[in-house]
């Protein structure tokens, strides 16, 4: 039936594929932290259990065991064995309750503050989205413009731009962030070295707060943006040089088409593989940007993750990693769809039934 609607077929196969990836990601997110010898409850009890009486300690331990789905429950009560001890669940049961909780949108509770992980993520997520989405897209776009121009012009512009782009692109994110902090926040004192806004201000839509947030935005923005420009420019330059050597461009030039028209064709054809490239590198970009957040103590997911790692707060770590993976999956899926509708080559493939 779907054969008649290749586009719908394409979208549903891609969606199905991403759903499987999501399942694998959820499973990994469940399994990997359990590989080690550490049981989360033992860790918390080791941290907070001292100074409690035996009875209190037992109660507290049972509460944590319950929260992590490590013991069997029936109608809200703990199922106990003959000696009154709770019965431990198997890994499969734990996995079932983990997926069940996720399906209800429950990411668990922080070990430290007994705050819901979801609330912590919701507080951090806007900062991360506001920092990363514009930075990554803009960096990629500006980089592509530079790259295309360098491929077309060659000469001095290319000779200056290419080594600089190579240099920028080999910078690890965290290193670049540190250098920017040192140069512009410590030496010159133009920008604040850390944080997302002045802590004396209340977050809100006041002029002072927005100004302060913008001031704090500059350095983290630059450190992700410039690396993106470097990467985009190198990829686009290579693609552009390749496209400029193809027969259709030579033909277009022989026909005497306007320079701007030829450049437009080159740009359009070289752009689309670059979008695929962006999709493939998104995981690395987002990972790098998260570390940049940590360098700047930016109040986003990266910082939430860092403090969770320092506190050994597994619930938050697991919640944040899952949200990151899901975000990257959604971004990839969007790029896939974008390419499917804008790349004539892929579009033709779908129409002929080759897509999916």
């Amino acid at each position, binding site marked *: 039936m779907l054969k008649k609607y290749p586009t719908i077929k394409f979208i549903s196969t891609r969606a199905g594929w991403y759903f499987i990836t999501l399942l694998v990601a959820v499973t990994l997110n469940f399994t990997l932290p359990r590989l080690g010898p550490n049981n989360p409850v033992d860790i918390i009890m080791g941290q907070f259990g001292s100074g409690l009486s035996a009875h209190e300690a037992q109660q507290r331990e049972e509460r944590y065991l319950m929260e992590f789905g490590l013991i069997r429950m029936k109608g809200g009560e703990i199922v106990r064995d003959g000696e009154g001890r709770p019965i431990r669940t198997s890994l499969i049961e734990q996995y079932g309750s983990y997926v069940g909780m996720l399906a209800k949108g429950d990411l668990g509770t922080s070990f430290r503050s007994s705050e819901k992980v979801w609330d912590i993520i919701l507080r951090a997520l806007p900062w991360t989205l506001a920092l990363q989405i514009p930075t990554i897209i803009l960096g990629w776009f500006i980089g592509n413009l530079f790259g295309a121009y360098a491929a077309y012009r060659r000469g001095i512009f290319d000779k200056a731009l290419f080594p600089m782009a190579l240099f920028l692109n080999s910078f*690890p994110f965290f290193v670049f962030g540190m250098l920017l902090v040192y140069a512009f926040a410590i030496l010159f004192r133009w920008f604040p070295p850390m944080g997302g806004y002045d802590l004396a201000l209340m977050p809100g839509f006041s002029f002072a707060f927005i100004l302060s947030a913008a001031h704090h935005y500059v350095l983290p923005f630059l450190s992700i943006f410039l690396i993106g420009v470097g990467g985009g420019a190198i990829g686009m330059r290579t693609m552009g040089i390749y496209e400029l050597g193809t027969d259709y461009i030579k033909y277009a030039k022989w026909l005497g088409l306007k320079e701007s028209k030829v450049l437009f064709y080159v740009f359009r054809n070289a752009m689309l593989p670059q979008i695929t490239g962006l999709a493939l590198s998104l*995981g690395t970009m987002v990972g790098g940007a998260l570390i940049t957040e940590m360098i700047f103590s930016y109040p986003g997911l990266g910082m939430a993750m860092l403090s969770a790692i320092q506190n050994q707060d597994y619930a938050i770590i697991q919640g944040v990693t899952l949200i990151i993976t899901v975000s990257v999956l959604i971004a990839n899926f969007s790029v896939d769809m974008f390419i499917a509708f804008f790349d004539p080559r892929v579009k033709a493939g779908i129409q002929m039934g080759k897509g999916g």
Partner: protein
Amino acid sequence: MKLFKNLLKSPMFVFGASLFSLVLFAAFVVPFFYDISQVTRVGNPYDAPSGKYLLGLDHLGRDYVVLLLRGLRSSLYVGLLAGVIATVLGTLIGLIAGFKGGLIDDVLSALTNLFVVIPQLVLLILISTSIGESGRSLTLIAVIIGLTGWTWSARSVRAQSSAIKSKDHISLARLNGDGGIRILLVHILPYLFSYVFMVFIILISAGILSESAISMIGLGPVDTQSLGTILNDAKNNGALTDGYWYAFLPATGIIISIALSLYLINTSMDGVFNPRMRK
């Protein structure tokens, strides 16, 4: 040999190779003249650079030159080990998927595509936290980075090997009665050597950067120093905001030198090797 001569004509390669030789010199020759066997307290926290301790002292009063040289050696070790693991895994998976085609290709490609979209940093963080403080050795970290870093190379090797598969000399070998493994090793792999080597170089660099990245966030090795743990210590002890440049500039400089030199070597090789392979 001719290829090598062509490489030497590329200023990018010469610069990259010289810079990398310098890094290797620091890691393996300098220690003969500068004792790095002991990491001990020799002065006060963050003592400024002096004639005796050229790059100053860290937050525990330890000589930064010793720490940096040891860190550099650890980083190179991690890069090499992780690079070898990721390259071997990626090449094998890519070769087999591209050459066999059919169901095997579908399964292996699906696996690759799956892990391409899951961020490596996420996997590294999840595994490192589960191992816990006590078990996080340098070697284990290298192995984990290698095991999670192969996807990109598998993808590209697959594309290359599936392109070679349809070449005439492969059909000839088949007619000759050669088996699959022999064709793979004798008739396909040699064509990919330059490519695999380039992948290897990039994966070494990626391994070093991954190690510094997770060490930076406090999930680094506990049994030794690495460039990442030096930066992590500097950040945690306020060296950045207090302006102790010698706590992080030399380490960042070394990391950039490694990444840049390997990247330049790779890019220049791409220019020399590729005209033949490029689609």
